[in-house]
């Protein structure tokens, strides 16, 4: 069997092991821990119906939701191409496939750097077992794992800045940058940082070549400008209003989304419960190998560019300052941009850590091979150490969880339906966003128009927020709730009674019974649901 075939099988086995129940869950279960999972499933379900103006007509009803600020055009394309598959099944299949392909491309990058097939697997392990990979799987950001373009970008630039570098290598780098941008905004920013780092290193060592650079710019600049244009049209640059999200300053908001000295180490159980599983865990084995690279590899040409990527990646992913999670210890370059409102768009600097992983993976593979040349088989336990890093310290697949992928059967019917949930006063919007994500996931199952904008970055920007407040007030203060619903072109209200306090539940239910004395009720699909239908709207032409 060829080495490539072995690598493919190895990457698939590793991905199947790390993604836990996803490959076996089929259409029955959502696999992941956090509520962005529900949004991603909705996005896959909505992709086939998005029109040319990038508007989804069935959410943010009746206006429709603009998807111009969608995070991943790659996921949009996948959702359209694979429209025949259930979005839940597609998501469950994407999890292992994305991990496997990322690991495989890292293996290929190490091979391209001259490392043997055996030791290149350390690069694959470093990538697949990293905290960023587990975060993407647990938080429901599987599209962030479709970032094969990042290792390929590193490969393209390495070739483009080599003495034999040609315009074709630059062209490949430009294409990889465009694909990275399409994968997610953070992947695009990581690609820009990766590009700048490699080019500056090449310039410093006198290896910068004009033809590949011009070819890359010819592709990357138009792609970048188009992306910014669509992004700006989607009003994504309006910012996220850090104050309304419970942060005292923009710097504090950026710091909360950054890697710190604690999240770089093994993830603890509290991270999965309260921290959205956001881990920046790096394999200790790979880190140690990177640390000894100057001693093991000799000349700086062998380790310089990769160690530079490790350091630059760490500096940007740690955000405005080095922190231990509670205190800031040392300011970093990002602290200079925290006064800019647009810096809020970079809310999770930790996601730029892919730059570190590329450098770390290649460096670990190179050093592993060099150590084997030095001490023979005594270097082999390093593979076992890297596996222990993945499974024991990284905690996958043990941290993976699942929940039912059904929606309450009371949603069955036609016409726009308004989800009435309790509103949480918590300024972090955790519960409001979670309940909105549930409404969006249910929409993927029942297919009726809903009030939620499923790509709204905050609860206050979700049109259901203001409408729900007005509807609740009308219901509790004997207002004409039915007239409001008619004005908004809704034909039913879905009350989620168990989530309200007993008093609110009784009052809302009593008011809604005046609209529809015989609501549909279900206790399946993970929730108790009451659907009250407005009978008069059926007669509206």
């Amino acid at each position, binding site marked *: 069997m060829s080495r490539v075939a072995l690598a493919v099988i190895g990457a698939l086995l590793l991905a199947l092991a790390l993604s*836990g*129940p*996803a490959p*076996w*869950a089929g259409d*029955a*279960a959502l*696999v992941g*821990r956090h509520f962005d999972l529900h949004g991603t499933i909705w996005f896959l379900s909505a992709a086939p119906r998005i029109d040319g103006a990038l508007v989804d007509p069935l959410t943010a009803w009746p206006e429709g939701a603009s998807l111009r600020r969608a995070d991943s055009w790659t996921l949009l394309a996948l959702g359209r191409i694979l429209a025949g598959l259930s979005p839940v099944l597609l998501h469950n299949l994407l999890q292992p496939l994305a991990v496997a392909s990322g690991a495989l491309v890292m293996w290929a990058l190490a091979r391209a750097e001259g490392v043997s097939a055996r030791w290149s697997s350390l690069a694959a392990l470093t990538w697949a077992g990293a905290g960023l990979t587990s975060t993407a799987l647990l938080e429901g950001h599987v599209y962030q794992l479709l970032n094969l373009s990042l290792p390929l970008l590193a490969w393209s630039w390495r070739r483009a800045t080599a003495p034999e570098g040609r315009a074709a290598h630059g062209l490949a780098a430009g294409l990889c940058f465009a694909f990275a941008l399409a994968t997610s905004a953070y992947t695009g920013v990581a690609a820009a940082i990766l590009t700048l780092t490699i080019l500056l290193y090449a310039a410093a060592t006198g290896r910068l070549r004009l033809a590949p650079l011009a070819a890359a710019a010819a592709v990357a600049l138009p792609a970048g400008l188009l992306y910014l244009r669509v992004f700006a049209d989607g009003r994504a640059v309006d910012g996220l209003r850090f104050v309304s999200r419970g942060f005292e300053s923009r710097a504090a908001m950026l710091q909360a989304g950054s890697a710190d000295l*604690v999240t770089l*180490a*093994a*993830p*603890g*159980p*509290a991270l*999965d*419960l*309260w921290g959205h599983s956001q881990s920046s865990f790096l394999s*200790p*084995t790979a*880190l*140690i*190998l990177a*640390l*000894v690279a100057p*001693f*093991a590899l000799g000349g700086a040409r062998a380790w310089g560019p990769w160690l530079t990527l490790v350091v630059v990646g760490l500096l940007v992913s740690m955000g405005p300052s080095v922190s231990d999670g509670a205190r800031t210890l040392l300011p970093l370059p990002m602290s200079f941009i925290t006064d800019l409102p647009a810096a809020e768009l970079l809310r999770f600097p930790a996601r730029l850590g892919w730059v570190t992983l590329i450098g770390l993976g290649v460096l670990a593979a190179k050093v592993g091979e060099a*150590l084997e040349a*030095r*001490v023979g088989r005594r*270097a082999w*336990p*390093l593979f076992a*150490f890297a596996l*222990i*890093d993945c499974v024991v*310290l990284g*905690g996958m*697949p*043990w*941290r*993976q*969880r*699942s*929940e*039912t*992928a*059904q929606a309450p059967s009371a949603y069955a019917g036609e016409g726009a339906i308004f989800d009435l949930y309790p509103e949480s006063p918590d300024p972090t919007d955790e*519960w409001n966003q979670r309940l909105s994500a*549930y409404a969006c996931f249910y929409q993927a199952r029942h297919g009726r128009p809903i009030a939620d904008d499923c790509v709204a970055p905050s609860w206050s920007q979700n049109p259901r927020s203001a409408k729900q407040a007005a509807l609740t007030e009308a219901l509790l203060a004997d207002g004409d709730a039915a007239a409001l619903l008619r004005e908004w072109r809704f034909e039913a209200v879905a009350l989620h*009674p*168990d*989530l309200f306090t007993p008093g609110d539940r009784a009052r809302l239910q009593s008011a809604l019974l005046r609209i529809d004395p015989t609501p549909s*009720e279900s*206790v*399946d699909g*993970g*929730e*108790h649901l009451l659907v009250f239908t407005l009978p008069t709207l059926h007669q509206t032409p």
Partner: protein
Amino acid sequence: MPPALWTLLTAAAFAQEAPATLTLALVTPREGLSVEARGVVLGEARIVALRDDGEGADEQAKDGVYTGSLTHGSARVLSLSLHARGPDGAEETLWEGLERVVHPEDRWVFRLEDGARRARRVAATPLHPQAPELGAAPTAASLAWAGLILLYVGTFFRRAEGPAP
């Protein structure tokens, strides 16, 4: 404790509507409490007694860990409150709110410190009211592991640079 691989896989396969059992635990140094959890689960009002008598879901009597179990039909979110009645008969509400449910989730643990009026949810299971929470243990384990690897890799360099045998 992480779930066993089989539990993990089957939880996903049967997550559709299978009943799941959730263990509720309150860890407290306060003695002589009568503790119960009240909730609405898929439209049904439920009351679960949390006991510290070594019976049912409780593993050990009088260890300060009050335990009860709740079986539910694959609910996505539970609305729950914890109540305690002390020796004086006065009832206190220790915790109330919404909690999301994921499978397989074995235990929800709350901790009530001596003198505190409210319990708080804790991520890892303290084995005893006096036992410290896990806190920075994963970080320490990671650092210790990195140290061991560094020592191992360090031996490669010492051997290589030493005199030839």
